[in-house]
């Protein structure tokens, strides 16, 4: 396999849809400030998500019988990239649209799908992902949270960490141990957890800027009915690995700092210096290439291929790009970053500087991704 040859993205006509989304966003976000737009996919707005659902833009590729719209992966891609480029607050429906819904479609029971998927597509049912734990970050197989079979279901004990928006979510996809701790991969399973279940406590974790997105979710003898099991008992590891290509190649992997690039262009004005023009031109060139790579992976996913390696390449390149934007911006425009600034550029710069460190950690650290790529090259 030629790892570096990405096939051309599907040649789908999406410009009508794109215009529709732009018109919708122009109206929805008319008053959204740049510093709010710069939150990118961590902006949460349940009402906005409901309206997105009403437009048919959640679960776009899913079967109609589950509330989906049976559209192509590239059409979904267009909606998503337009939302991210505009800085729309997608977080409420985001995790379900990207990961949880597709997982339910792939391994869920008919009952689970019918109960949940239409509510997701309506923008009325929000998900969070319960993967990481205090001692299991990059080393996912080290999870200790455990579901023990009991009469009629399972009892769960343990602690999940870094669970984004658990405090607003209806459900968690829980990844935990159901077998022996020695069986690193085989002894794990996934569950569909209603967060109103007794025995689940959600505690905020402030991030370095003092904001609350993360949570610690503690399970203390939480009882899950047998129907909460998602997929096969003991198959959790394989199911999770299958999600990764979906998680690592989307436009969210290179557009997280895009608002700052927009504000940089605004601050530089219509007659940038030669150097500023070259710097912005370079970033734009990177963006064009990343977008092509990412759309190519979307096309591969649509064809049913497993572009896990290509997705890792996109995420690694994308994170470099997202992280260098604030470095470049602050060299081109003289401004001390301040989240409280009344100057858009300064406020967006501040938000971006404080957030970029996470871009090469979330969804697989840079070192883990590069290890995966190296293995793909035949080095390990």
């Amino acid at each position, binding site marked *: 396999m030629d790892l570096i040859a990405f096939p051309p993205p599907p040649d789908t006509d999406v410009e009508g849809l794109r215009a529709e989304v732009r018109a919708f966003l122009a109206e929805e976000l008319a008053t959204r400030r740049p510093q709010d737009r710069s939150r990118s996919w961590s902006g949460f707005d349940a009402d906005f998500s409901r309206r997105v659902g009403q437009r048919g833009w959640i679960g776009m590729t899913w079967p109609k019988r589950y509330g989906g719209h049976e559209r192509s992966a590239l059409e979904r891609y267009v909606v998503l990239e337009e939302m991210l480029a505009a800085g729309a607050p997608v977080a409420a429906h985001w995790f379900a649209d990207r990961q949880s819904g597709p997982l339910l479609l792939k391994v869920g029971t008919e009952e689970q799908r019918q109960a949940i998927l239409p509510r997701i597509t309506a923008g009325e049912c929000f998900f969070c992902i319960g993967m990481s734990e205090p001692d299991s970050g990059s080393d996912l197989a*080290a999870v200790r949270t455990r579901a023990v079979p009991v009469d009629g279901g399972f009892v769960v004990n343990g602690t999940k960490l870094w669970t984004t928006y658990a405090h607003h979510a209806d459900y968690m996809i829980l990844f935990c141990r159901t077998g022996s701790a020695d069986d690193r991969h085989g002894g794990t399973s996934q569950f569909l957890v209603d967060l109103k279940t007794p025995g689940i406590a959600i505690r905020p974790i402030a991030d*370095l800027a*003092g904001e609350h997105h*993360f949570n610690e979710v503690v399970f203390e003898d939480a009882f899950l009915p047998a129907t909460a099991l998602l997929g096969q008992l003991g198959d959790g590891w394989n199911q999770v690995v299958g999600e990764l290509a979906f998680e690592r190649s989307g436009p969210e992997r290179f557009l997280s700092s895009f608002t700052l690039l927009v504000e940089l262009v605004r601050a530089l004005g219509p007659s940038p210096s030669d150097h500023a023009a070259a710097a912005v031109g370079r970033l734009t060139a990177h963006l064009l290439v990343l977008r092509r790579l990412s759309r190519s992976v979307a096309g591969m996913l649509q064809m049913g291929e497993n572009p896990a390696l290509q997705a890792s390449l996109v995420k690694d390149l994308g994170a470099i790009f997202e992280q260098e934007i604030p470095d470049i911006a602050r060299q081109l425009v003289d401004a*001390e970053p*301040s989240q409280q600034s009344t100057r858009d550029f300064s406020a967006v710069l501040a938000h971006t500087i*404080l957030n970029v460190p996470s871009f090469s950690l979330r969804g697989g*650290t840079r070192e883990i991704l590069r290890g995966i790529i190296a293995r793909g090259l035949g080095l390990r």
Partner: protein
Amino acid sequence: MSDTSQILVDTATRLFEEQFTARQRVAAESGQWLDAQWQAVEDMGLPLALVPEEAGGFGLPVVEALDLIRLAGAFAVPLPLAETMLANRILANAGLELPGGPLTLAPVRPDDRLTLARRDGGWLLSGTAHRVPWGRVAATVVLARCEDPCGDAGQDGQSFAALVPAGQADTAPDVNLAKEPRDSLRFETLLPAESVAPSPGIAPAELHALGAAVRSIAMAGALGRVLAMTTAYANERSQFGRPIGKFQAIQQHLAVLAGQAAAARAAGDIAAEAVAQGGSLLPIAAAKLRCGEAAGVAAAIAHQVHGAMGFTHEHSLHFFTKRLWSWRDEFGGDGEWGRLIGREVARAGADGLWPLVTAA
């Protein structure tokens, strides 16, 4: 280092260790003024460390006094210690009385201009100074030009130092990334004659350079701490059955971090010596630029190694990285100082570059 200095450094280290824990830093971030801590710092006399002996200081060599600022950087001390040290030095230099209490400096942004004019036997101070450190709580030592009418001072255009008590300016609060106050102060303030004096040798441009020097030194301190924290974390945190510090990828990162910290430390030393020798611009410019660059590279590595843990407010790493990300742009960012050096090089010409380097 002299014995006196070593004792001072050791004592200050103990003080900072005792007084500044995460609890104080969180309180300061939320906008609280740490009065008890300030008193402890002041009781030890640290704000006077840069004041000459004849003006009431304790006659410490300048380089050793500035080492206190490195220490304060290494403890993320959320107080205007560096600013007060500099302000007291400027007051003493101008023959003005040292008021005690926290002080700050203005202007700190290169485009801000403050002016003084004779009015009613005293002085009228006018103008706006942006992003003044701790402007909301500290008395401000201002450097201003005397403009017409200067009256019998007869020194139009000369640089004056003036002491403005806290609360005498229209204050628009703002902060840096570490939530240290960086406030806009609008002055239209009458000052008594005894609060104003000519400031020979220190004009606003020199103040800007002094500020750049102390921020460089503080960055060197913070970078040393970031290196120590990150090394310790890499030895503690286990993944895949062993400490992450055993992985070659992490080791290579930490070696780069150490290189940046060493470069910043040397740059800070260069800046301190330049201040001691009268404030030569080129080495201070080089130091500020080099420390600022080290700050960016080092903070990125530190967060990468700390992983999600370092991204929480609970972990202390951010107290240091947020300061580094702020300080690198205060008193002139990399670009401003780089241009200054580059223009000096252009003036010296290709064949003058090396002599410029060896003379700096």
